């Protein structure tokens, strides 16, 4: 007969394993300060008027070498190593990612953009810890004009963007940054603020940074809506996009999208998402799981490009119009 673990024993076991996880005495202050430091957001929340649209475009590029055919490069695009694969690279290879294609794309993007025009985000791995993350952001490239941004991404034919700013959307910003791997122990500097959310920042040696992805973000303001759009392309291993029991999904038609789904996520801050998964790498797919009780299209293999269009409270049809620039 099995020994029974009572809930109180369960809690005590977990607490002993989590003894190093302690409350941060400064958290409340940071949360309060985060709002006070965001006057635009404060106004937006108080009157629920301002529209925010954010599109995240992550061009998945993995510079970690998977075989000797490929090279590690630093943030300047210079070869820093031709070392054989790491565990992570192995996982990419096992996942069937075409490393040459990814590497070529990354090199192309690096060459197109001067170093001073990128933000560097770091995924840090230390010798003792499995992994820590940070979002150190430097040298951001911003766009003041949507046309400039479209021009910037013109060479990337698998980004799906509205062809023009939808009517009524006047304020526009965009950022570009690269995501890197860094193999040395991070040095904690301080908690730095990035918008309403603060991140732990680390120093890192630029020369050791290995670019793993390329991401673009843009946003609009509109005084009457509160919608968020996110779009991204990721070169990471295929990931199962799991719908929860309470989620629902249905096919929708969106210009420039392939097999678009509208997913409704009750309770989430952005309850409506439009998802399009399109090929970035041959043989890379995302499997959309569907709980049996949810009305949604058949389970299927959706290709790798991901497009998220998220709405906070507005009519989902508005999202389709928005993304179709209607």
């Amino acid at each position, binding site marked *: 007969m099995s020994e029974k673990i009572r809930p109180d024993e*369960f*809690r005590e076991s977990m607490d002993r394993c*989590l003894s*190093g996880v302690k409350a941060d005495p400064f958290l409340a202050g940071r949360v309060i300060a985060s709002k006070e430091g965001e006057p635009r957001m404060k106004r937006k929340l108080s009157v629920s008027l301002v529209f925010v649209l954010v599109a995240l475009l992550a061009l998945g590029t993995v510079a970690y070498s998977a075989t000797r055919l490929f090279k590690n490069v630093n943030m300047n695009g210079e070869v820093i190593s031709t070392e054989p694969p790491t565990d992570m690279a192995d996982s990419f290879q096992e996942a069937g990612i075409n490393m040459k294609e990814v590497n070529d794309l990354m090199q192309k993007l690096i060459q197109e953009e001067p170093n001073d025009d990128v933000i560097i985000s770091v995924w840090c791995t230390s010798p003792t810890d*499995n992994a820590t993350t940070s979002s150190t952001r430097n040298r951001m490239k911003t766009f003041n004009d949507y046309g400039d941004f479209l021009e910037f991404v013109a060479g990337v034919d698998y980004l799906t963007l509205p062809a023009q700013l939808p009517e009524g959307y006047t304020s526009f910003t965009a950022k570009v940054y690269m995501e890197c791997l860094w193999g040395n122990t991070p040095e904690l500097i301080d908690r730095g603020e990035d918008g309403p959310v603060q991140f732990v920042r680390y120093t890192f040696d630029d020369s050791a940074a290995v670019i793993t*992805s390329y991401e673009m973000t843009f946003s609009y303001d509109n005084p009457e809506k509160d919608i968020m759009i996110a779009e991204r392309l*990721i070169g990471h291993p295929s*990931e199962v996009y799991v719908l*929860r029991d309470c989620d629902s999904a249905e096919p929708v038609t969106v210009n420039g999208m392939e097999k678009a789904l509208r997913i409704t996520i009750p309770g989430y801050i952005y309850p409506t998402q439009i998802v399009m998964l399109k090929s970035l790498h041959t043989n890379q797919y995302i499997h959309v799981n569907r709980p049996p009780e949810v009305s949604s299209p058949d389970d299927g293999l959706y290709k790798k490009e991901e497009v998220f269009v998220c709405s906070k409270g507005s009519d989902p049809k508005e999202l389709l119009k928005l993304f179709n620039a209607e």
Partner: protein
Amino acid sequence: MSIVMGPDTATDRDQKLISLVDRYQEPLLRMCCLYLRDRSLAEDAVQETFIKAYRALDSFRGESSEKTWLMRIAMHICCDINRTGWFRFMNREITPEMFVDQAAPPPEERDEELATAVMKLPRRLREVILLYYYQGMNVNEIADALNLSHSSVSGRLKRGREKLKNMLEGRELDE
């Protein structure tokens, strides 16, 4: 049930936020650590939880407990993190000792076995097991927090117990 309703002034709001952080930060952080299996991501998730809670204090009507409300926010944030590129990059090797205070008495081997087994559970099962056994929430509260039906929560609890029983030699969770 303690209720946060209609803060009148910024000071009231701040005080209520401070009170919520004081009472629920550590449970949320530990829950998020077990859920995300990464401390940095868990800290980000908890901070984001309180930011969202702070902004939504006015609209919280006390229809659920504060703990259920915060857990619901945290679970959605963790779920969202789960879907991000950052999370996909992480090394998911599970080692409970990364959460242990080195100055504290080390956990017993059976503690680590249990924690590892829980963290190896599929996400859907892990979240209900943690909410039920670790956070002490009942099935109705979990259903509310995760927006699931009562039967879904019960079914996941049952499957979670079965999986844990298979992973833990000679031990199982008490129903």
